[in-house]
Structures are given as C-alpha cells and as structure tokens.
C-alpha cells in the first residue's frame, strides 16, 4: 500500500499538534477502535475558530462544506499524530455530526459531504463510513458551524 501521508488537492498538508483540555482527551482507545472527541473547525494550537456562524445566515452552504472539510483535515491530523501514519487507519467506522443551522436551513447532508468527501479523497476505500448528521442552533466557540465526532478502526500492532 502506498503511504497515504500526502497533500490534499488544495494544498493542505495533514500535519497537526493539539492541546489537552480539562477532563477531556482527544481520543480514547478501546481495543482496535479510537473514539475521537467532537472536533470543530478550530486552530488546534490556539483554539481560535476558523469558521463561525450559522449556515444559511452568516455562512453559505459552500462555506459550511469547507468548514466540514476542515474538521476532516483536523481529525486526519489527530490520527496521523496518534498513529504515526495514516497507513494504520483500517477504516473510518462511524461519524456523528452537528451542523449549526439558521431557521429553515436543512441541507445538512450537503454540508457534511465536505467531511465525507475529504475522508474518501485521502483514505479511498478506507474512508467510507456510516454517518448521522443533525441540525442544531447553538454551538461552542462563537457558534462554530460544524462539530464532528468519529469512531475509527485502527491496525493493532
């Protein structure tokens, strides 16, 4: 298998550091599963939101898609950081996503394709996943537009 540590189409390199917050860890391992905490489109070093606002009001569908893509990139960085290489990802199993919506906005699945398209772009067959998404109206950090949690299956040593 070719190494998957590559650069995405638009020049993002998958590379990241992170901070731990009280009581919360980035992820917990259970056998060959990683339970990854919900991540928003936030700078992982400073905690500053990269995107803020509700989709359908402050942000367009396209910006929501980009925000979801950013979440995928962040989580791929978490995986690369934790495992050393994305080659050790067996597959993305299950995704649960919250999308911050303006009243009347419901193209939540189109927003979340920003996340899913990125996973299959980078991980190909291993990037396909079960997914549930819902619209909400209040999110942390100045109303980030998207938050995604993931369960990932990894190679055991």
């Amino acid at each position, binding site marked *: 298998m070719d190494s998957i540590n590559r650069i995405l189409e638009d020049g993002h390199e998958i590379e990241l550091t992170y901070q731990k917050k009280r009581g919360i860890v980035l992820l917990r391992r259970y056998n060959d599963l990683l339970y990854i905490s919900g991540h928003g489109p936030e700078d992982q070093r400073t905690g500053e939101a990269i995107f803020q606002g509700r989709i359908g009001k402050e942000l367009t569908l396209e910006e929501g898609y980009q925000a979801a893509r950013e979440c995928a990139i962040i989580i791929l960085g978490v995986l690369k950081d934790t495992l050393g290489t994305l080659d050790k990802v067996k597959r993305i199993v299950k995704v649960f996503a919250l999308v911050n919506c303006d009243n009347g906005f419901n193209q939540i699945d189109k927003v979340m394709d920003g996340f899913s398209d990125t996973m299959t772009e980078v991980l190909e067959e291993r990037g396909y996943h*079960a997914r*549930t998404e*819902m619209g909400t109206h209040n999110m942390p950090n100045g109303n980030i537009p998207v938050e995604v949690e993931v369960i990932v299956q990894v190679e055991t040593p």
Partner: protein
Amino acid sequence: MSETSKHLEQLGIQLPIRDRKGEGAVDAVIYGDLMYLSGHLPVDLDGKAVYTGKVGVDMDVDQAYQAARLCGLNMLATIKDYIGELDRVDYIVKCLGLVNSGADFSSQPAVMNGFSDLMVEVFGRRGQHARSAMGAYSLPQNVPIVVEAIIRIRP
C-alpha cells in the same frame, strides 16, 4: 513514492482518479459482530422524503410515529441488503432518534416509539434496545425524524 508508482511514472501511465464525491457516507458499516447503521430517513426508494416538517408544528405525533416507522423499515432493508437475511440479526443494541421539533415540542419518545414498536414487532425480544431520543433544530430534507442504530449480527 513507492517503487510501483515510480515505475508507472517511467512508463508514462497515469491512473484515472476515481471521483468519490457525495458517496463517502454509506448506509452501514460492519465492525466485527456489530453493524453501525447511519441515520435513516423516512424516504421512498428514490431517497426522497415521504414526510417533511417539524413535529408539533407541521405534523402531530401520530404522523411522526408513522415517519419513525418508515425509518425503521428503511433500516431493515439496509440490514437485509448487507447481511442477506434478517435471521442473522442477533439483537438491536442501541438506537438514537433525532426528532425535528418545534420550540415547545417534547414528546420525542412518543414519536420514536414508531421505530421501537416496529423492531419489537419484527424481532420480538431481539428487537428491544437501549434508546435515546432528542429534539433536533433541523434535519436533512426537513424530515421529521432520523434514526441511527447499532445492531449485533450472527455469523
């Protein structure tokens, strides 16, 4: 770059890049003896919403109950599609119901019963499950309910 990739480059072979846009989210993923089911919507065979609207605003509990039941039927179809035979369902483990709720609506469990009742109807005791139900601000295609599940399967 791998040896094979270098070789392809030398041969001047460019592999076609498969466009996976829009298909990353699949209906279910099997992990060992568990099947993780994506949120299932009350849609028809073409994926179009049969029910739309907020419960407590655009529809009452009874209609939403039917929508939840349809989520369940679609989920059973997915399960059968993936494992070939519903006898292979050991039991339903856990479900989460998201109910598109008006501001004052709080009968999400009554709506979710449309799904849970169906599972027990079809599987008997095997259909009983741990469950959470909550109000959502908005759902894809403005459907009234989305249900996801984890089930245990037999070899």
